[in-house]
């Protein structure tokens, strides 16, 4: 089993809305590859209480589908606590969850967002062909470069 010591990976999305399921598919494949499922979490959207969950980890990686065009079909970037916070019970962005975590629990885990470009968002289970290609590219990059940096 590949351990994700003190690292939490959160897949955000909805697998019944075509490419919006990219975040969850990413986690499904990690699990198939033997990553510890205790460190993988699928969410429809982030909520205030996720601040409590991430407070227990040193590193958090948010994975979400993206409508914008991305070079190579994906983008990995480090994120930091938001300076200003707006609030809706429907969704809270990752940098605002970091802000809440810092404010409430005095913890600031290192955090990244992996954006994967999607193309189709209709009510259907299964990724589009192009999104699947982007998912594979993102996974390869994650395993070859990103994961090794994390564990080292």
């Amino acid at each position, binding site marked *: 089993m590949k351990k994700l010591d003190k690292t939490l990976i959160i897949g955000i999305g909805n697998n019944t809305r075509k490419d919006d399921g990219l975040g969850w598919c990413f986690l499904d494949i990690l699990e198939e590859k033997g990553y510890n499922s205790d460190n993988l979490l699928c969410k*429809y959207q982030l909520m205030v209480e996720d601040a409590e969950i991430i407070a227990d980890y040193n590193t958090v990686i948010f994975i979400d589908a993206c409508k914008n065009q991305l070079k190579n079909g994906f983008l990995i970037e480090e994120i930091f606590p938001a300076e200003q916070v707006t*609030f*809706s019970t429907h969704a809270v962005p990752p940098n605002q969850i970091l802000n*809440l975590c810092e*404010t409430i629990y005095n913890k600031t885990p290192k955090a990244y967002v992996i954006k994967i470009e999607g193309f189709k968002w209709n009510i259907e289970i299964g990724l589009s062909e192009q999104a699947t290609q982007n998912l594979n590219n993102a996974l390869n990059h994650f395993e070859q470069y990103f994961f090794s940096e994390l564990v080292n």
Partner: protein
Amino acid sequence: MNKRKIVIEPVTRVEGHGKVTIKMNENGEVDDAFLHIVEFRGFEKFIQGHPYWEAPVLVQRLCGICPVSHHIAAAKAIDQLVGVDPENLSPTATKLRKLLHYGQVFQSHSLHFFYLASPDLLFGINAPAEKRNIVAVAESNQELAKKGILMRKFGQEIIKALAGKKIHGILAVPGGVHKTFTKEEREYFLDGKQIPNVDTMIEWSKEIIDFMKTYHTDNAEWIDNFAKYPSNHLGLVDQETGALELYDGRLRSVDSEGNELLNIEDIEYSYHFKEAVEPWSYLKFPYMTKYGREKGWNRVGPLARLNTCSHINTPLAEIERQIFKLYTQNKPNNMTMHTHWARLIEMLHCAELMKELLLDDELMGDDLVREGTPRNKGIGIIEAPRGTLIHEYHTDDKGLITKCNLIVSTTHNNEAMNRGVRSVAQNVLNNKPEITEPMLNQIEIAIRAYDPCLSCATHALGQMPLIVQLEDSKGNIIDEKVR
């Protein structure tokens, strides 16, 4: 001065997408005010043709905050389609459903109080918009924010343990439930090793009520008078004792003075209620047929429930109810902002009920599903966090749904919310040369007291930014603010 119209769109920190229009006359006085519900999805229509057993699963997709309430109300109705009335469900199934329901009410009330309402109470109605959110609450009172998160989590963990997941899980099946509770699951909520236990939930619920009572003492003038108006109140009460009932009971309505208007078997509701429509809203206006559209509307939810019940059958919440009632000399309480106080008393009640059930060995029984003689009509009524929730289904002989009627809590509160908006608009906007953000926030606070779920009421999700438009008498936009 020109006649002008003020539009608040959408209303923030409520579930869904609403819009407020305030019409002012040539003298700068408020003529009228409306809360428009502008979402529409039509669950009642597209569920037609589906097999009855799909209903408890399908209808909970109405909402991401209270799916459990829709799941349980639909399940109660579907039980009748398979010939099982509430009293014939097995004790284990009834208790498991109740535990799920109390977990739902507990987490939903926590969400509303800590995430949505507390900024208004902690920072006041004149606080800037950027301060009226949970982060500012966390900065100001870290412990309160932590407790809020953990209390909501406790309710959600109850839901997850019973329904498999926190949102859109499944426990109920026609005539019962599909799983029982294990000793390990029970210990999780009792031993306090992984999450604060149910005793801590009771303790914290009492603390939050104390916070509210102190807040009320310090701010009685505005808490008592803000958006206050007389109304009828509707809620379920225990069949025999008249106690507060959230899962199954009689429908009781009282007027603003406490006179009983209605006391009926819940399944008789359709003989006593009608729904009016207005061209400016997708949300209907239910009213009691006997009293007509003008006089027959009710408030529902925590305040209404404490006004319609005779007592609460858990000891700590009953003590708090008595204190609450003493303030109005045992008359119905028509003070809108006291809804928050009532909501916290219900949280304590739910925490006590959850403890009672968690200690009951019958929760781990294996008599899960009952059967009866199939029928073509089923009605399920519960008290959801926001108030009385009604699901009614009709089927053909193949078990396909031919008709569905949903009256959700926010729909019952439609007239009440409109009255609240009008009352506040007349108080804060009359003859004012300028429309300020705190004024607009007061309008929202009046709506927010009802914790409206506009997504449920019309069954759609919405965007949350606030747009304010000023229009002249010809409908031209003369000013616009976005936040």
